[in-house]
């Protein structure tokens, strides 16, 4: 599985709720509060073909303003499989 270090930005009012939710999420290895209110740092683990979906999933949570990526490694996937898996294709829709 790939490992990503992410920065989660939240409204200051919802930071605690998002922290709690991240703490119990199966794809989050650990989460910490940063000194700046409304900012959390976390380690996200997922197969590379699911990583983008995971970003979108977390970004869609109530109270989450943005997900930024600070670190990403596929070393274990490359070492194990010799390749990085492709995510499934999905058409992007925008409402008319």
């Amino acid at each position, binding site marked *: 599985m790939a490992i990503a270090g992410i*920065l989660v930005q939240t409204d200051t009012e919802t930071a605690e709720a998002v922290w709690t939710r991240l703490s119990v999420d199966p794809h989050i290895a650990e989460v910490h509060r940063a000194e*700046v209110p409304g900012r959390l740092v976390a*380690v996200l683990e997922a197969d*590379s073909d699911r990583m983008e979906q995971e970003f979108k999933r977390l970004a869609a949570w109530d109270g989450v303003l943005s997900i930024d990526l*600070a*670190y990403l490694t596929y070393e274990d996937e490359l070492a194990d499989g010799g390749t990085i*898996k492709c995510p499934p294709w999905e058409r*992007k829709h*925008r409402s008319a």
Partner: protein
Amino acid sequence: MECSRRDFLRYMALSAALAAVSGAPLPASAARQDDKPDTWVKGVCRYCGTGCGVLVGVKNGKAVAIKGDPDNHNKGLLCLKGALLIPVLNSPDRVTSPMARKTKGGPLEPIGWDEALDLLAKKFRTAIDTHGPKSVAYYGSGQCLTEESYLASKIFKAGLRTNNVDGNPRLCMASAVGGYVTSFGKDEPMGTYEDIDQASCFFIIGSNTSEAHPVLFRRIARRKQATPGVKIIVADPRRTNTSRIADLHIAFRPGTDLALMNSMAWVMIHEELDNARFWGKYVAFKDNEGKDCTFDDYKAFLEDYRPEKAAAICHIPEEQIWQAARLFAESPATMSLWCMGINQRVRGVWANNLIHNLHLISGQICRPGATSFSLTGQPNACGGVRDAGALSHLLPAGRVIANPKHRAEMEQLWGLPEGTISPDPGYHTVALFEALGKGDVKAMLICETNPAHTLPNLNKVHKAMSHPDSFIAVIEAFPDAVTLRYADLVLAPAFWCERDGVYGCGERRYALIEKAVEPPQGCRPTVNTLVEFAKRVGVDPKLVNFRNAADVWEEWRTVSKGTTYNFYGMTRERLRKESGLIWPCPDEKHPGTRLRYVRGEDPIVPADHPDKFFFYGRPDGKAALWMRPYQGAAEEPDADYPLYLTSMRVIDHWHTATMTGKVPELQKANPSAFVEINGDDAKSLGIAHGDACVVETRRDKLTLPARVSDVCRTGLIAVPFFDREKLVNKLFLDATDPISREPEYKICAARIRKA
């Protein structure tokens, strides 16, 4: 402390994210891990002009990870494209050997390096001996290292004595160059990215920052989130993701932004929001021909742009002009950001001037957060091409070919006899490929760019590149680049951090990319290729006495001494230690320059200068405010082609996707081109989302699937240009700005129907 390798990687991930928040360096304990040590090699992202610092993780000689450099301006953050550079670096889909065609139109076959370089030299020498130096050319790139661009320009201009040296920044940044030079006397922004953290109002025009410069967009969004009262104005005919954080989105009719900005200036003066103390001392008013004028002349000129008139031109509510002007002028500090929507126009230089005008008339300039900041598309368009003089009218460090004093300076610096450098500027890009098609240019060396995909009016370009008497050599890392279809010779370069060199990003920051890994066998650093070519084609060896990129850098920093670019203080060793330095940086103790033209900040301004601001590039020391009229596009919609067509970017791909197309996540996110169309237009044409549509202009037609949305305003359709199977640049015309010679990719007339 024992921990598994996976634990260590989790720790690195967390540390990187934390460093991004706090700006703190990584904990020292991370470096003391004795469990399979990683090497982290400093560099710069390969993609856009933001110039994010990166650290490439190397294990057993292979790149295995990447993270943002916490000590660079991006504070450890990367966008998804930058974070996914390792699969590109490790891609097996590489040119790993020189290749040549035995006959024109025949297949490319591998050949050895000696044979390739001999062939290259022979073709260029034959062309020069038979047809003269103007029959050869170099077409370079804002993705080459600075050392490569500087060296190529020197070889061709000083060695082969032709000024036919141009590059793809002609297609993206030339109008920004023209704007800065005509307004301030010198190219390049006066501020830095740090101004984002100080601005109270952002005027974003002709830029989809959220998709084209995501890390900077995040910084703007964070500024708005963290600071009450920060306002964002987005002026764009498309309601992009950028405009979704705007307090005011102005969806003007394409090409009418000149009227919009003149009208904003009218409001500022009418409401006495102009800063007479500033413009009275530091601004020279010029009419469109450059004649000196007065403030009253400017006021009279702006009467044609009263809000009610401009609103009718722009097809926007008049109230938006009043609101934008007030926000701009009344904010404690206003920062403008723009990109291709302004530059890629037949009046791109004028549009740039009008942005600068707003800052000059309101005094929103030359202080933290108040600045006019042009966003750069490529990672090294600034440092490598603009600053090093690798365009057909330029010489290094802001010198111009047309100036005999500048030519004499370079002849002396390069040890050339007087009169060596030709006084005639060479062909700009569109003219260069036209000359190729006419047979006037016989031999061309193309380096790290994809003109057969990126030039406008592509059918004409393809025909030109197929001229039976031409010889086209291409230095290109990836075999799927469309340009290779027209190459007679292909050379195999080392890519990105497979060799060391400098990139100069949009905020005047020069940063070193250190060599992290060896290139594939068969690939060579381009500096060495250029030196070998020069020696074999008969250039004086003294001109190319370089062993490597570091030697070239030493010469270039010496050439910058005494100029307004002076970065003599950026020794290689210093760049190795720092995460970039911002020029001017005249000596090794100088920290770099945050604000240009400001006494006490800019080392070029004498410490005892009587005025606080000194625009030293202009003869009178004042900035120029130009009275530029509104003028429409080269091709406006008409009865036959009733829609505006524009080009755009998508966040998942960069340029022609020769790199991003190798990353499964990015390719799957946006696999192919489409045409974006407004819902009301689609409904009236009977087009549903996903329908195959024929998009047609006077030049060609393409069938593309429709994306129906509220992004484009009515009357406008938009296409992305990354797809090599759907070359949308066949649709656009090659009309150019008469000052900058940058083509108008952003506007042409089109029609669309369901296929």
